[in-house]
């Protein structure tokens, strides 16, 4: 896995790019994926347009810091095909359920096979890329940077892939609304995971409370309700790490090839055995 994408679909997108891009351009491209290089970017009708800050390069005759216009487009899927595809998607509860959790189902390609089209790009034939830079090689590092950026965006928003393939969000919603299952997905579209708010303190900060002026000793030393007599027996769970297993393996923040759940299981077990509790 690379640092731009952790999902299988983002990965496939990158693999397609890498299949027709030179290793040097790719490598340099990676440093062009951040905000310091990509000044702005937008998607209009499936076309991704960006302004990328270039380098001064006397060799190419560039003496002032340039801004290049870079764009990328995937081969669009025709409207008739889309109608058909959405119909197929809407007949699979699993596909819809997974999309509702904001993930691209692994089996989505199977649904597309019948129509002989593909959702995920495979090679250069799926890409139309341009850049105003003087580099003779296509794709250049700016294109590569933009694609890396897109891949990480895809992680968060798998529906972007539909857009890149020519189906706008509005049309997607309209098409989904035609079927019972699709309708359900349409209503949850746009529920994105938000950024939590910033924290003011690492631990909950104990707030001061006003103390009464006078109090009788009995009220001072006893709570409002009596403390239970027996402490509940300390029963460990039968299955380790049940809680985190609900989130599935390979969460977005996990960069490793090895299983996150596996590592956490070991951690929890070490804690249960070794913590001074």
């Amino acid at each position, binding site marked *: 896995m690379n640092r731009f994408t952790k999902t299988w679909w983002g990965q496939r997108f990158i693999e397609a790019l890498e299949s027709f891009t030179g290793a040097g351009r790719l490598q340099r491209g990676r440093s062009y994926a951040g905000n310091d290089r990509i000044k702005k970017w937008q998607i209009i009708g499936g076309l991704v347009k960006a302004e990328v800050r270039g380098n001064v390069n006397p060799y190419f005759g560039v003496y002032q810091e340039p801004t290049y216009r870079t764009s990328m487009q995937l081969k669009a899927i025709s409207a008739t095909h889309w109608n058909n595809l959405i119909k197929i998607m809407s007949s699979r509860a*699993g596909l819809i359920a997974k999309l509702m*959790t904001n993930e691209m189902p692994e089996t989505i390609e199977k649904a597309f096979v019948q129509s002989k089209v593909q959702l995920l790009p495979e090679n250069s034939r799926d890409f139309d890329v341009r850049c105003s830079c003087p580099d003779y090689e296509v794709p250049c590092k700016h294109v590569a940077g933009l694609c890396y950026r897109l891949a990480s965006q895809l992680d968060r928003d798998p529906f972007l892939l539909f857009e890149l393939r020519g189906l706008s969000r509005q049309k997607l919603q309209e098409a989904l609304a035609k079927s*019972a299952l699709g309708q359900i997905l349409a209503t949850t579209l746009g529920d994105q995971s938000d950024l939590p708010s910033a*924290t003011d303190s*690492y631990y909950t900060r104990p707030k001061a409370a006003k103390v009464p002026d006078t109090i009788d000793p009995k009220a*001072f030393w006893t709570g409002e309700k009596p403390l239970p007599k027996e402490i509940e027996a300390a029963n460990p769970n039968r299955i380790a790490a049940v809680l985190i297993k609900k989130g599935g393996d390979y969460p*977005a*923040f996990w960069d490793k090839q*090895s299983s996150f759940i596996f590592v956490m299981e070991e951690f929890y077990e070490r804690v249960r055995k070794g913590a001074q509790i």
Partner: protein
Amino acid sequence: MNVLHIHWIPTQTEDFVQPGKFYLWVETDPVPGRKSPGLHPSHLRKEALAEFLQINFSIKADGFNRKLAESMVRQSIFLPALNEKPLPSLELLSRSADEDAGEPGNLASWQIDSYPLDAPIRSVREIHFLASYQSDEIVLGRDFLFWSYFTQSLRQVILKDQYIPVLLYRDTKSRAQPKRYEFYPAWQIQSERYEKLIRDAVGWIPPACANGFDKESLLRHCGEVLIGESLRALNKKLPASFIKQVKDSALEVFCSESGIKPSSGSGLEAVRQWHGWRQKLTGKQDEAGFHLCFQLNEATPDHADSWSLQFQVTSRKDLSYKVDLADYWRMNHTERSRIENQLGPDFEKHLLLLFGSAARSYPSLWSGLECEQPTGLPLTLNEAFDFLKESAWILEDAGFRVIVPAWWTPQGRRRAKIRLRSAGGSRGTVQGPGTAGLSIQALLDYRYELSIGNEPINREEWSQLVEAKTSLVHFRGQWMELDRDKMQAMLTFWQEHGEEGGRISIADLVKKLAEENDTFEVDPEDSLNGMLSKLNDPSRMEVVENPKQLRAELRDYQKRGVSWLLFLENLGLNGCLADDMGLGKTVQVIARLSVEKSEGKSDTPTLLIAPTSVIGNWQKEIERFAPYLNSLIHHGSGREQDPEAFQQHCSAQDMVITSYPLIRMDAKLFNLIEWQRIVLDEAQNIKNPKADQTRAILRLKAKHRLALTGTPVENRLLDLWSIFNFLNPGYLGNPSQFRKNFEIPIQRDHAPLPSITLKKLVEPFILRRLKTDRNIIRDLPDKVENKQYCNLTKEQASLYEAVVDDVAKRLDASEGIERQGLMLSTLMKLKQICNHPMQFLQDGSAFTPKRSHKLERVIEMLEEVISEGDSVLVFTQFTEIGENLTNLLKRVHRWNSYYLHGGTSRSKRERMIAEFQSPDTEASIFILSVKAGGVGITLTKGNHVFHFDRWWNPAVEDQATDRAFRIGQQKNVFVHKFVTLGTIEERIDKMIEDKKTIAQSIVGNDESWLTRLDNDTFKQLIKLNKQNVVD
């Protein structure tokens, strides 16, 4: 007295990271004088505190401080104060005799020397545990008890893996660099149980613990710091192999040894990722109006891979409303919308969301969702096994319902076991060689068999199963799980021991089955099993007839008790009869002896050892219920000391009654006889195994042993061990084994398994009926009246005699009002003497239980009642008794008690009653003077009523008793009337009982009817029977 307190004190800081610590300090008895402003005048200063902790809790200095005293920290805490002195905490306050000591004080800040606790969750538990072994002079404050409960409950978060890594971020908001963020790795508690704990603890926490903070935020701070610190403390111990696994991953910063620091290399994007992940764990399942269920359907044996998971939904409102999804999809529109009424709106949307979240926990599920209308999922045998073993638990924990076949449930599961069968035919042979020893140990002949799910199985079948390649096998018509390693081990065991079999005592058999429950079982068809099941469930026992000669009609549970005693003794086992107080243990023992006598089975008497205060009661009850039993009291200075004569006296008896201390003093005499049976009344008296008294008792020889106790002995492990050491020596191991195997894991670590094992070990030998058991309540009247007979002490007797002699002289010489006055004042004096010498002497001498067996017995019984969690009303006519008893209960025993007398103000009276009645108040004692408490007061929380002294008028007594026994009383009420033997109290009690002598009409509203007796009758009435004096 030393009272241990702890305070959770957050570090005073505005920093982003605000830690906190527990500080322990020790409050002592108030000392007069010695004052320095702001410093708590009566607590252990640092040197003394260090010494105290070293001696009592073996706390040592850490590496940095050579002396423990250097670790002490001065802290300030809020305490209520009066007259510039902090008020003592409740533990000390309850010793104070001053009635106004509970007056409010001004909250002020006080300085104390304190010891900061490291690894607080563990330290608090250990100190709590060790404190119970210290003398009564070391007491845990209520604040300590609260924090102990809170911190120990926090352990669950760690033991159940209910915390997750999260990434926090902070906006440092400096003016120079707005929107500058710092990112912190943190452990977050994610647990319903924890949230409930916080909610509950807000109600439990005493203001003393809150110490000027808002309760909830303080509790959360404490919980988060303790969990976070416990986890981070572990990082030092993580091995390199683990560190390697998390290297260069998002978890690396969580395993760092360097404390809480902002992590570099994170960004808002990472925060979003962590947050998104966390949201998946919390889920939104509660929004749906239904539960998604997964039912595992088993395969047929011919198609071992044809398992399936069937999808169903049940209504949240009505769990019995269940719809199979396959049926749902077949329904038409109207039928479906009808279903929405039951399952809530947006059914299909929620269904899909639930499927999505379930499939994340159980990825195989996706393949069941590749269609428009999912109904189920086929599984292979291995997939089904994985589902049962793990996924089902995860799904269940994630809030889904999982239905598995009955054979997988703990009740329905068939297990492979080694079975014991009695050898030589199907009937068990129980042999009871009457060898002279500690007790008869009946031996059973047995041999081993292999079995699965209660059916015997031969070696070939067993081997086939061991060699099976799958974990689930279809065996004799049902699926079952195989644990091949264990089965292999059993096979080996059986091959080594199978043929030979052996002999085992019943106690050892019970022990084997309790401790190796997973491996051994008894053939359910075998007579052995019938015996064991009776042992484990005495309600299966055939009930004996009421013994013919017995002058009492036993209640049904008492008959069962007698059967149980018989059953155990026939098997050569010794048991403990631990019925609740008031259920009649004495009469059951007397019935047992009656049966024995009628069968002519004993050659030697039973030796009853009892506290001095109940000797009289035993004698009286034998007299009442079984006058045909010959009994002898061996007690007092006039007791037989000549061995030969002692033996001779004893041989004519059915029962010899003596007190605990005499066993040691007269050991030579008692050791002469091999007793038919030793009965220990109030058997908790032998709880100290090292005491000479206990050792002397253990040396006695007897065929049978029986322990009686009314305290919940199962919960007091030391008592339990001691009693078993008397009944079945060695059964629970030696003290250090017992401590290691049971006491520490159960009482300190709250581990569930050892307590289950212990329960199985002891249960067959303890018969404990509670007065709250439904079966018992059915047998009992709403009001159970008991008399408690006690003897006079020597001191009481000589005072009593002097009064009687004096009045005898003066009575004949007086007439009219003078005579009447003399008689009434005599009655009064004698009552006082029967209560306590101090009351009569009015000399301010000590009000100690030693000087009055009645007081001694009252205290013993109060202890029993309180330990059962019941509340009690104590009536007396005398303010001296009321006052002194209140002081004694508060000061020495620290029981919550109230005293209502004629002088109590109305508002105070109402406050006391409300407090006593409140369900939140602990079990308490309410002392009332008969006159003040006679009418118009409802005290239904008390379900025991003690009449310390008697009002010689049944109507007045009944009226008092009715304080407890009136509308609103949910429990049976036990009335205990205390009567001193050989005195006026016993005789008038008899007169009242005997309604022929005194018609109800003669007995007026007061005691003046007594003055109408003629002189001789009166003298007879008050005469002292010296035989009833016991010192």
